């Protein structure tokens, strides 16, 4: 899928989630990520980031999924990484589960600090949905 289409889906999703669609000078998702990467403020509405990724995936696939997201932190602040678990509600299959070395991991973790990272995360989930 073209990068422009993914970015448009991310921006639409973010405007809806953050309420930016009702503002005169809305902050874009790309700007929001830039600000997050720079300040890592503990009061930042950081969950808007994974919610935006999830909403963009659902809008681009025209499907709903079960999600769990985790904003990773170290002792001091956000690491900029996000853990995701994605489940297909039709089959109950955990799409992010992966078998390796005899065990099965459940989540995937991505660094998301700019719009390129966000696009890559969406592309990863689109591939998972396609493969399922």
């Amino acid at each position, binding site marked *: 899928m073209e990068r422009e289409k993914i970015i448009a889906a991310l921006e639409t999703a973010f405007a809806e989630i953050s309420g930016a669609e009702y503002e005169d000078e809305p902050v874009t998702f790309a700007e929001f990520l830039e600000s997050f990467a720079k300040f890592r403020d503990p009061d930042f509405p950081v969950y808007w980031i994974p919610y935006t990724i999830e909403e963009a995936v659902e809008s681009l696939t025209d499907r709903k999924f079960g999600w769990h997201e985790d904003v990773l932190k170290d002792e001091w602040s956000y690491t900029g990484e996000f853990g995701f678990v994605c489940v297909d509600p039709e*089959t109950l299959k955990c799409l992010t589960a992966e078998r390796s070395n005899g065990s099965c*991991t459940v989540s995937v973790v991505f660094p998301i600090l700019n719009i390129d990272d966000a696009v890559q995360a969406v592309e990863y989930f689109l591939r998972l949905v396609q493969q399922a």
Partner: protein
Amino acid sequence: MQLAQVPYTEEQIKQAIEEVWQELLQEADAENYSLEEYLEDYRKYWDDPEFPNDIPELIMRTVEKIVGRPLSWYCELVRDPAGFTGEYSFVVVDPKTQKCLTYREHTFDGVNVHRFINVAGTVVNYEDIVRLVTKLLNQIQSALTAA
């Protein structure tokens, strides 16, 4: 997959917790540390990164002991800006089928469907551990019955 012990009683859960605790102690070479003592320290120091990590291991190994085989799981230690809240959020997957065993749907208004893939609970004391293990077992049993 079926639960190894059905129905499971609170006594069985408590016995399984104790067995798993002893296993964890052996693995850590710390034989004289009761779960009660641990939980007292846990309440004092739960913002120490080392402490909360033992709780998910204890809970899920207990669940696995009662289910009768290993499960795949993910646990989020829920934090707010002030730090760790004491809440744990588990996603459990059957490693053989890769199906999520903690998935459920709920509608609050009769129209919009909300999809939950986790089971969460706050752990402050021993009874909270028993309650969260029971909640996980009930959800897993319900997922298996539906399948």
